[in-house]
Structure formats: C-alpha cells, structure tokens
C-alpha cells in the first residue's frame, strides 16, 4: 500500500474510531481536504512547483500516522533547544502530543494555547470559523493533507492593542518512540489591530529515527499589527520537514518571516504572503547553510493585490559537500496594486564539489507604476579577501568562516531579539565548524 493510500484509509480509521468531532464545521473542512488530497496525491517533479525537489526519498517509509501517548521528556535534556536565556510563552508538543509539563501557556487577556482545546471549546468557534483554513492554499495537496489530519498545534489569538511582553516559542519534539513517524502540526496565529507579537518555532528530533513533519501555519495580521516570526530548522539527518506558512496582512501591518535552515535531510519551506489593504510591509528573510546530502527548498510567493505596499525578500545560501539548495521566489503584482515596491535578492555560495543550486526568481507584473526588481547571484568566496586575511595571520579555515559570516550577516542583523541573534550566530558557527574565539 502506498503512503498515499495509507493516508486516505487512515483518515477513515480516524473517523470510525470517533477521534474526530464529526459534527463540527472543522470536520467538513477536513473531509473536503482529504478528498482533494486523494485526487491530487503527492506532487512529483513534473509539477512545476516541485521541479527541483523530489519527495520520493522521504515517501518510501512506512510512517506511523497516529500520535501516541505522551512520552516523558526531562526539561534538562531539552533545555538547549529553547531560547532559555529569556522568559517566554511556550507551546510544546512531544511526538505530536501537547506537553503541559514543558509548556507555559496563557489565557490572560489573550490566548496562547493549543489547537485541540480551541477545536473543542465554543468560545473559540468564532475565531476558527473566521480564520481556520482561510488562506491555506487549497491547491496544495500537502497542505490539504495537513488540513485533513489537523488535530493539534499552537493556537495564538491576540486581541487588539496588545504588545506581548515576551516572545512565544512553539517547539515540536520527536522522541523516536516510533521507527518512522509522520507528524502534522497545525498552527493558527491571529494578531489584532495595533498588536505586536514575536514567535520562534522549532522542530527537533531527540533520536535518529525517521521523522517527516508536514506543518501548516496560518498567520493573520490585522491593521497596524506587527508580527515577527522566526523558524529554526536544525534537525538531524533523518528528519525531513515540509513547512507551509500562509500570511494574510491588513492595512499598515508589518510581518516578517525569518527562516534559518541548518539541518535536516529534506526541508521544504512554502511561504506565501497575501495583501489585503494598503501600506503593508512584508519581509521574507532566510539563511540556508547545508552540508552532506541535505536539501533545502525555499519556495516563496508574495502576492501584491493592493496599492502602496512593499515587500522585501532576502535569502542567502551556503552549500557544502553534496548538498542542494533551491530558491523559488515569485512576486505577483496585480493590476490594482499600483505603487508597489517589491525587492527580491537571492545570493548563493557553493563550496562543496558536488553541491548544487537551482534558483527561479520570478516576477509577474500586471501594474505599470511599480518598482520591482530581483537579483540572484551564485559564486564563491572572494579569493583575494581570503588571501588578505591569511596574510594577516588568520588561518584559512577561520578566514573562510569569517567571510561566510559576513555573507550571512545582512540577514542575521534583521533578527530583532538579541538573545536569538546570538543563538543563531552560534548555530552558524557550529555549522561552519569553527570556534570563533570571540563572542558575536
């Protein structure tokens, strides 16, 4: 039985076992999603949007699809995966099951809790009806798959005029309790007018068993809301992640999504921004540093539908060994979206002899009074700069690392949480395999 068939029949099992609330409106959405997925199947490389990423190597496993009972995890064993230097709200899942022990949620003035609770309680119904699965791409079979199985994830609802006092961390741990597991977290983030929140999201395996995560997040930013979203992807070599994040912005809101991909076997980041109002700012930033046979595909879409909005996109990639990078960035400017400014930049450095990069920066412009540009470069480290540094006594390896730091710095500088910035800097240092000898 193929994974596709297995998933479709698993859905029926779920229904029969009474694990799904069959009467809720969410269930109608699930049913529709599974039937779309059944028709669509998994995408293949023939699909233009998946031209450079093959799912074959990760679809061959016999994934277990039902989350099991919570496995105990000691905080001291996982502390390092949290940004523990600062206070934060935490929504933590272990093997797909909510861990109240590791979490720190709230309902005081705003809700930072879990989706499973939101599905059940009537007071959240209005929010779910208004936002759940509203901007997730219905044409995307993988998103549909997540929707069908969506049972758990983080639920964040901030009413208007609230500046969150501390960031929110959403952490998903996998203990390896199953040999091969498929997890499908589903997050919903709704930020009200004038409100401001910061989110850090991480997926982390605690064993080397095979895991495939198919995560979907919907983010809604109301008028003048500010949302800064950070994604840390530094998992081990048997962990794969398909992360789809959909963002809808209203007038004068500012949303940034920053993706740091340093680990994992295969990572696909779908990131889509939709504008609904004027004077919106969208920021999409990313750093990928890969080695061995890792594969990261950053697949972005910014849809300018309204006038006077801006989008800024900056992705940097460093590829060692036989790793492969993909950047597929699409900017669409609709006819109504006059006075749009859209900038996109993608810079790549190939270090490994067998490393490769495929880039597809696209502009689709239907309005005339716009400023749009994209740039894409593929190159190497500056040999003369390397030599210069060596001649000043800096060993080649450190010199190289410093130059690579410099290369990624433009994106690192955009991190607005100082502790996170220093954490990311250390992760980059580790990834590049150098001791810097100084604190950055």
């Amino acid at each position, binding site marked *: 039985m193929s994974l596709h068939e297995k998933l479709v029949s698993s859905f029926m099992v779920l229904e029969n076992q009474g694990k799904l609330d069959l009467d809720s409106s969410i269930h109608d959405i699930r049913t529709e999603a599974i039937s779309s997925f059944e028709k669509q199947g998994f995408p293949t490389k023939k699909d233009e949007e998946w031209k450079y990423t093959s799912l074959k190597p990760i679809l061959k496993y016999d994934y277990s699809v039902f989350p099991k009972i919570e496995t105990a995890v000691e905080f001291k064993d996982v502390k390092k995966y949290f940004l523990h230097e600062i206070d934060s709200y935490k929504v933590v899942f272990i093997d797909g099951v909510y861990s109240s022990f590791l979490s720190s949620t709230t309902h005081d003035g705003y809700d930072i809790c879990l989706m499973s609770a939101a599905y059940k309680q009537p007071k959240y119904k209005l929010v779910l009806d208004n936002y759940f699965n509203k901007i997730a791409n219905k044409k995307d079979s993988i998103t549909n798959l997540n929707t069908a199985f969506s049972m758990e994830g983080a639920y964040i609802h901030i009413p208007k005029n609230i500046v969150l006092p501390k960031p929110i961390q959403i952490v998903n741990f996998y203990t390896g309790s199953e040999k091969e597991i498929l997890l499908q977290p589903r997050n919903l983030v709704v930020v009200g007018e004038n409100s401001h929140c910061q989110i850090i999201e991480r997926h982390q395996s605690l064993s080397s068993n095979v895991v495939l995560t198919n995560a979907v997040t919907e983010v809604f930013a109301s008028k003048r809301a500010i949302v800064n979203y950070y994604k840390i992807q530094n998992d081990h070599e048997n962990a794969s992640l398909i992360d789809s994040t959909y963002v809808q912005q209203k007038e004068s809101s500012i949303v940034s999504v920053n993706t740091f991909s340093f680990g994992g076997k295969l990572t696909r980041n779908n990131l889509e921004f939709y504008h609904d109002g004027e004077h919106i700012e969208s920021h999409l930033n990313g750093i990928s540093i890969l080695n061995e046979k890792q594969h990261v595909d950053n697949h972005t879409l910014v849809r300018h539908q309204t006038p006077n909005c801006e989008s800024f996109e900056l992705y940097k990639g460093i590829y060692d060994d036989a790793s492969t990078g993909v950047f597929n960035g699409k900017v669409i400017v609709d006819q109504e979206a006059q006075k749009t400014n859209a900038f996109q930049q993608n810079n790549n450095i*190939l270090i490994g002899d067998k490393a490769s*990069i495929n*880039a597809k920066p696209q502009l689709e*412009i239907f*309005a*005339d009074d716009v400023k749009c*540009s994209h740039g894409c470069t593929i190159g190497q480290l500056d040999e003369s700069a390397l030599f210069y540094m060596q001649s000043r006594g800096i060993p080649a390896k450190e010199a190289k690392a410093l130059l690579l730091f410099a290369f990624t710095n433009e994106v690192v500088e955009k991190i607005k949480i100082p502790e996170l910035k220093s954490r990311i800097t250390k992760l980059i240092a580790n990834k590049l395999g150098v001791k810097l000898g100084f604190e950055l």
Partner: protein
Amino acid sequence: MSKYTEDDLKKELETQEYEYGFYTDIESDTFPKGLNEDIVRAISKKKNEPKWMTDWRLNAFRLWQEMEEPNWANVNYKKPDFQDIAYYSAPKAIDPNKTLDDVDSELLAMYKKLGISIDEQKKMNNIAMDIVVDSVSVATTFKKTLAEKGILFMPISEAIQEHPELVKKYIGTIVPQTDNFYAALNSAVFTDGSFCYIPKGVKCPMELSTYFRINEGGTGQFERTLLIADEGSYVSYLEGCTAPARDENQLHAAVVELIALDDAEIKYSTVQNWYPGDKEGKGGVFNFVTKRGICHTNSKISWTQVETGSAVTWKYPSCILKGNNSVGEFYSIAVTNNYQQADTGTKMIHLGKNTKSTIISKGISAGKSQNSYRGLVQIGSRAENARNFSQCDSLLMGNKCGAHTFPYIESKNKSAQIEHEATTSKIGEDQLFYCNQRGIDTEKAIALIVNGFSKEVLNKLPMEFAVEAQKLLEISLEGSVG
C-alpha cells in the same frame, strides 16, 4: 495638442495600422490543406529529394503524431488546426532556380515596399540575400562572390541536392526531431530555408541575409535554416520576417540550427515583424520557433533579436556551450502591443570549462499585451569557471499589460559565477516633462526613451539593421510616425 498624454498615445497605438500589411497578388502553387504521410511525401517529391531525406521527414512526422502541443508557456491562444493549413505554397510566377534578373517584377515591387529592394541591398549594403516567400526561396544574390571564398549560401532545398553530405551530417543534430512538438512538425514538412557553410579560416566578407515573408493565406511557413561555421571562420547572418495582414492566424514554425566549430564565430540577428493581429487581437502570426546553436572549443555564438511582430511568439534562441572557452550571447528586444503575447528568452547550457554567457533582455509591453522572459542558465558539473551575466529589464506602458520574468538558474559547479538581475519600470512623468521642456513632444520622447532603454541590444545589431530596428520600435509603439 496641448496635452498629449499616455492615454492619447495608447489610443493612437490601437488605431495604428500594420505597415507591412499588404498582400501581393502573385499566382501561387499551393497544396491542398491538411497533413498526412502523403503530403509529407509530396513535399519531398516536389523538392526532388533523395530517399534519406524523405525517410527523415516521415520519421519526424510519425514522432510528431505521438507528441502533444506544449502548454507551459505563458501564452493563451486557440491551438491551430493542423488539418486546416496548406503545407506548401510557392509563388508560381517564378522558378526557384532562376537568378535575380528573372525575378517577377511584382515580387521586386513587393520587396521595395518592404524596404528591402534587392538591387539596393546589393549595391548599398554589401549583403548577400536569400529571400523566402511563403515556402520557397526566391533568389539568392551574390552567389558568385561568395563562391570564390568557398562559402556556400543557398536555399536548403538546393543544398540537399548539391551538398547532401553536409546537410546529412548536421541536420537535426542540434535540434533533434523529437526536441519539441513544433520542431518535429517542422522536420516533417519544412519546405525551404537557408543553408550556409563557411569553410575553415574564412571570414565571410559580407553580411548574409534571409528575408522571410508569408504571402499566401491559410499557409504555414516552416523554414529550416542550417548554418555551419567551420574552424576559425566568421559569419554575420541577418534574418528578417514579415507577413501581410490577415484575419486568420497563420502559423510559422521554423527551426534554426547553428554549428560553430572550433574557433569559429557566428552572429545571428533577427528582426521579426510578422503581422501582430489587429487591435482587437484578431489575426496575426503564431510564431513558434526553435533556434539553437552549438559552440565547440573557443567558438562564439551571438544571438540578437528584435521582436515586434506576431500575435503569439514562443521562441528561445539558445547556445550549447560544449567546447572549452566558448561564448554564448543573447541580446533581445521584445515589444508587445494590443493583444500580442510573447514568451521568449534563451537557454545557455554550460558544459565546457571557462565558458561564458551574457543575456540582455529588454521587454516592452503596451496595450493589453503580455510579455514574458523565460530563460535557463545551466552550469554542468564539469563546467569549471563558467560565467554568466543576465539582465532582464521590463518597461510597462499602461496598466492593462503585463511583464513577467521566469529565469531558471541551475548550477552544479562550485567555481561558477552567475549574476542575474531583473527590473521593472515605467516611463517617468519627470522624464517626459524634461524632454517636453526641451521641445520634444511626448510621442517622440517615448520613442527616445524606449530607444535608450533598448540601446544595449540595438548596439549589437549590424548598422543597416539597427536603423531598421529602431524604426520598427517606433512604428510598433507610436501611432503617428511614418
């Protein structure tokens, strides 16, 4: 005309008529419409072709029948009915083997109208010309002068008779029959085109030129060009295209193959001005062309194109940079107006070491047109030190048109350096006022700015062509000029 706004200009653009939209009434010998093996055989027979050629065509036809029309390009059109096209049409009044002196006076008058009087070309421009009307090569000038250098320049139908070994060796090697739907169709039914061979070490002393024209209604034009530059040789080749204004869509599916052997250089320039259809989007030529060249060691192929015509264009002149140190260039201006659609660009396939490519693409969209750049830069794992620079700029005029950029960049070698830039802009109000203040009216100012925008590409055209191209840009975008 106190306030000549862009809107006024747009209105004028819509009503402006296609300058080359005349139909020459010359009696022609046309096959019945439809396509089957018999038609393919009949074309081959008409051309008195050897059996290997007939078989080659039939093979292509069989392959074509298995293929599907591609639909990945960013264009929408009603698929042609391939059974409603006549695949062979020759002007009857002339014999393909006649010399220029025997050419029908009516035809000569037509060329004059096209601004390419053969006599004039002969005298003034030192250009050797091959003219293909509908399906047949009409006249090749300067044959003798070229022969002295050992250069072969003739209709491909003639080359199949006279130099079968060359044709057989190279045809279909760069654009295989199975390359794509239209290349397969062309391989089955091509009726004529130009053949050119430059011997070792010879620098072709003059520009070689082919002029294509579709005249007869309901015909398709399927020309095939094969150009071989032997080791150390050089040639500059020009290609011009026009068609009369007609209500129905005419199909043009050409194949061009270029072979640059070691140390050779080929410059290939095209000014394409097929009928673009009227302002309602009715009629116009479907231009589905496959152009590709291969570069051997130290050789260079440079494609330059000015595309102003056709209702739908689908065209990607490409270079396979097989040899070490070889160079590929692509310079393009594509103008679309009214309901025109163009999906054009290039592929630069870097296989050899130290290979270099440059892509400069300028797209200008007006009216309700859609203009797309689609390109591929591919660096193979053995292409050490490969370099590419690409720049794709779009200029939009009015907010009912679209400009799109779809570059594909693939690198498998860590020593490669690739830079790609793309911008989209419009003509600034401040630029127009500045020109106005100096006494240049808005219409002329737009022409000036568009020419400036396209300059990097216009500069790559041979002199005689550059003037014509500049004029074409003005005609395509300005109502009142001419």
